[in-house]
């Protein structure tokens, strides 16, 4: 349990910096990609900002538990295990979730693709951290 929490926390802090730092830089350098976010579908009053920024920790803790439960299935060097873990998460969880989201909400394919890649990147980074901290 302790290993799950510590690994999750380390992954959470890392993902927080990488995800939101990356997002901030992307908004600065590729603003045209974010124009579609001026959409009434997205919360606009700031009331859920805290939930948005907690996402890195929520996904890290969930993935940390998932890793601890199924890590024996991922064989090979740490880098390979981390990548495979990220891909498994992306295919099992992200792809169906993004599929249903795209099919039901008025959002662009670019937007949904960016979310998929963002989640895949997060899962791979988390997998690499777990492979090192909780082998």
């Amino acid at each position, binding site marked *: 349990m302790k290993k799950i929490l510590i690994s999750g926390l380390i992954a959470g802090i890392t993902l927080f910096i990488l995800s939101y730092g990356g997002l901030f830089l992307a*908004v600065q350098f590729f603003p045209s990609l974010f124009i579609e976010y001026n959409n009434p579908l997205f919360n*606009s*009053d*700031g009331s859920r900002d805290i939930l948005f920024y907690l996402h890195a920790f929520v996904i890290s803790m969930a993935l940390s538990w998932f890793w601890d439960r199924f890590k024996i299935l991922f064989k090979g060097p740490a880098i390979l295990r981390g990548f495979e873990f990220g891909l498994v998460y992306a295919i099992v969880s992200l792809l169906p979730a993004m599929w249903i989201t795209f099919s039901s909400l008025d959002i662009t394919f670019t937007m949904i693709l960016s979310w998929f890649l963002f989640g895949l990147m997060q899962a791979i980074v988390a997998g690499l951290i777990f492979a090192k901290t909780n082998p």
Partner: protein
Amino acid sequence: MIYLKPVLILLLILFSGFSLENKKPAYLTKWVVTKGCSLKVGGSTNINKFNCIIANYSKPDTLTFYSNNTSESLKITGSLKLDVQNFNCFNPVMTGDLRKTLKSKEFPKLTIRLLSLSRYPEFNNKLNTIKGVVTIELAGTTKRFEVDYRFVSDGIKSINLIARRQVKFSDFDIVPPRRIGGMIQTNNELDVEFNLNMKVID
């Protein structure tokens, strides 16, 4: 002495009557709104700019002008009621967003009430610039603004009135939208321009 009291009362009534008569603004003229009026709103976020318009407003609203005996300024009664739902930002996403921000479902009308002009425009001059006062009612909040009008007249009875003014979302107790944790933020300032075509009818 016994007759003094009624005389004083009579004098008081007479003087107050004259005084009221003098203060009452005198009817001057009427203008009616004709076709082709518009309201433009321009704003920006930290990633883009947007321009939205309510085009082709053509309700025949009437503005009545009263001259003020003590100064050159004119009092106006009359207002324009625009449908917030008619805003078009030339991008469905931005259009929907502006309507939501302006709470169009709760407050479907944007009301511009013209209150006064610093002077009556000269129809002989092709171009006049005049100051005026309006109130704008938006999203349930009414705010008073001074505006600079530009009048273009055809020399007879038709007039084109253009007013520009910078307003703020916060003037109307609207919080500018912010998205994805505040990484996309709408700036508080909005440039508003209303363009009215009018005809003198009386």
